[in-house]
């Protein structure tokens, strides 16, 4: 009797769910016939973890995260190839006429999604808009060296610089280089943030803020595919916002999604073994680092900061946090970057030396300190490791949890003591990678670090065009940072994406932003 009843209940439950489920369920078993010829059409369902900050690249504050969408809607004046070299984008050719003059030859027959021509007037309009402080462009500091933008002829632009700047090309290969339709800016005014109009392979269709965005094929795109017809191959592109990793992954497995960003290292092995899914390693990383407030005792003492640098066991982070997929580097420069130098001063793990340095600084028994971090993974794990490692040299860390804005707010006012954050690398130009956190005037100089020597060399590195000379300068800057240790570099965590094996032609830019222009789905 009992068995019968239980069986009945289970039967009822399953049949109800089955009834809902079976109506129109897609046959997942439609085995993809191996096809080498490019398959045009169809749609791609992707998901990224972070909400986009804006659809107007000028005021985007998400940078790395917003690129997943930006790269589809807009194109930059200059592109960067996988080795970090500049290649033509919307600019066909460029010439450094003298230290302070840059000539840009624009590509012809390019149209914005609203039908407006892409030409020299458009470039002038977009750059001048970004240079205007009223616009509050998030990258203004990167292009402030531009004095004037002149239209030479309809497809030639001359940039006159205030100072020589080798970093300007990098800026034009990044957010400052995304071209927005001037007619759309005039039409929508401030509302351009939700009505994006670029020259990219996909056009904006609709979006629910914080939930998803749908883009459709730009039929008049200017680049042709391998089959001789205009790109892109895909008809539609939907990017969802799914913050949770396990939810994203389970959706990828079920076929609800075709592409996801930032796969956690813990899931890498499972994905590598999968029959239907592919793991894509990007060239981008996150450099996790401790930031030390150099304006506060005892962190204002160099010996104390160096002691902390010696007291952290970096290999443990790679093992515990990155499951072996991370790397330890002496600074925030990545190995493939052209200005990487293996001979930069490095800190090993040396508790005795750390204790000696603390004693020398007058803290033989250590001290108490606040450890602040943003509540998310892997930051939570990292900060706990930091706490336990510092305890071994007598530094007693008290963990303080913040949300992202509160963390920025605290450090913006330099109220933190030791903090944990990360730097997404690479940046298109080394100057940007060094300036923002360490220059006295750097926008994210949370530590209060200020070194005349550092600032001078950094400025010189920007006004130098010769690559070898620049390389030597960046080596010197890294040595200064190691010596002064305002920030302590823990490890580099590479970014991985995952997709269905049906997705072909998918690429990422050096910063990990998706490039879906040449992407297509196998049948």
């Amino acid at each position: 009797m009992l068995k019968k009843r239980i069986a009945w209940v289970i039967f009822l439950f399953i049949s109800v769910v089955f009834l809902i489920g079976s109506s129109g369920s897609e046959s997942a078993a439609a085995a993809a016939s191996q096809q080498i010829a490019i398959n045009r059409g169809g749609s791609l369902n992707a998901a990224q973890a972070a909400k986009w900050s804006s659809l107007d690249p000028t005021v985007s504050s998400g940078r790395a995260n917003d690129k997943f969408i930006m790269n589809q809607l807009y194109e930059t004046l200059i592109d960067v190839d996988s080795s970090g070299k500049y290649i033509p984008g919307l600019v066909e050719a460029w010439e450094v006429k003298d230290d302070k003059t840059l000539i840009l030859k624009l590509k012809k027959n390019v149209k914005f999604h609203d039908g407006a021509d892409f030409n020299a007037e458009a470039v002038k309009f977009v750059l001048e808009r970004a240079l205007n402080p009223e616009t509050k462009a998030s990258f203004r500091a990167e292009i402030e060296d531009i004095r004037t933008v002149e239209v030479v002829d309809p497809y030639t632009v001359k940039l006159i610089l205030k100072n020589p700047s080798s970093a300007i090309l990098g800026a034009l290969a990044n957010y400052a280089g995304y071209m927005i339709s001037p007619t759309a800016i005039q039409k929508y005014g401030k509302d351009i943030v939700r009505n994006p109009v670029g020259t990219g392979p996909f056009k904006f269709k609709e979006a629910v803020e914080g939930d998803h965005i749908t883009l459709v094929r730009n039929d008049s795109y200017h680049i042709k595919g391998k089959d001789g017809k205009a790109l892109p191959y895909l008809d539609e592109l939907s990017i969802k916002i799914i913050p949770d990793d396990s939810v994203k992954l389970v959706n990828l497995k079920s076929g609800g999604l075709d592409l996801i960003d930032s796969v956690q290292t813990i899931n890498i092995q499972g994905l590598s073994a999968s029959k239907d899914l592919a793991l894509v390693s990007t060239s981008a990383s996150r450099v996790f680092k401790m930031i030390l407030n150099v304006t506060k005792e005892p962190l204002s003492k160099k010996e104390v900061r160096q002691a902390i640098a010696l007291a952290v066991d970096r290999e443990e982070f790679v093992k515990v946090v990155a499951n072996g997929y991370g790397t330890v580097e002496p600074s925030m420069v990545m190995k493939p970057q052209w200005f990487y130098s293996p001979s930069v001063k490095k800190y090993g793990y040396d508790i005795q030396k750390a204790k000696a340095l603390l004693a020398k600084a007058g803290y033989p028994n250590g001290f108490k300190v606040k450890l602040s971090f943003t509540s998310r993974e892997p930051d939570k794990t990292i900060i706990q490791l930091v706490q336990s490692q510092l305890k071994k040299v007598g530094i007693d860390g008290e963990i303080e949890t913040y949300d992202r804005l509160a963390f920025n707010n605290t450090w913006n006012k330099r109220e933190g003591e030791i903090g944990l954050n990360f730097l997404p690398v690479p940046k298109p130009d080394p100057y940007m990678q060094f300036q923002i956190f360490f220059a006295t005037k750097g926008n994210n100089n949370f530590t209060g670090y200020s070194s005349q020597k550092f600032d001078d060399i950094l400025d010189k590195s920007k006004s130098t065009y010769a690559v070898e000379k620049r390389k030597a300068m960046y080596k010197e800057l890294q040595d200064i940072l190691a010596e002064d240790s305002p920030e302590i570099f823990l490890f580099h965590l590479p970014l991985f994406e995952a997709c269905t094996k049906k997705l072909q032609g998918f690429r990422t830019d050096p910063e990990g932003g998706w490039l879906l222009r040449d992407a297509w789905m196998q049948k």
Partner: protein
Amino acid sequence: MVSHIARKLLEVIPILLLVSIILFAIISMLPGDAALAVMGESINQEDLVRTRSELGLDRPIYVRYADWLGKVLQGDLGRAIKSRQPVKEIIMQRLPVTVELTLLAILISMVLAVPAGIFAALRRNSAWDVVNGIVSMIGIAMPPFWMGILLILFFSVWAGWLPSSGYVSFLKDPLKNMRYMAMPAFTIGFAFAATIMRQTRSSMLEVLGEEYIVTARAKGLRESIVIWKHALRNALIPVVTVISMQMGRLIGGAVVTETVFALPGVGREMVDSIIARDYPVVMALILITALCVVLTNTLVDIIYVVIDPRISHSKES
């Protein structure tokens, strides 16, 4: 009855006003503000100050509140700070999803829980009762997040019957909408059913012990009439109360469930807006949630009368 409803509705005004004051104060007290959210990673002090004054965030809190309230009273809910989307539009996009999810969850939980509760009470200490007790404990103990993932693993990854995430409006394609909503609604409904089942069981047990039930049986009424007409009606009153009191919890559960199934509902937007300190959006969404809760309570008052005609609001002192 009509005057009672009218009075209930009038009570909404001071409640919402109070909620809005407390809310506004809390959002203002949070470290970090919307200007910081707008500026993001590259914080330039001048731009930050400029943005702050443009958004009016440098004014004293009572001035900002009065400004916001004045506009709301004129029907202007403002725009989201970062995206510049009108708040009204956000509500129109998001609210239907959460309302549908909540209603379906209640429906599922009622269908599952009320009959199960009745049978458990009638067959007290039977195997059925024990199984019921175990299932309802699972429902209460299992976090909706985990439940959601398990459902996706089973019905989407393994069986391939239901889509794992996404949303289509009911008006656009009712069938597809139901397929998308089935798992999220079940996730919330199952947890909720556990509470209702236990409530139904215990109030049914209590009613079954009442003297009028003994009297009804003594009169020789059929058992089905005794149960369905005499016992159930009375037993349902506390059940309805529980449902109305759990509205807040239901909407709270929707936040998590919407995240798991990537539904564009109010819950997710609320969390995102709090993180971004986007106060026009937070204020509007929480006030609407509060309004929903208050209105549900009013509705429940009406349902009481329908279930039990002895309760009449016009006669109460």
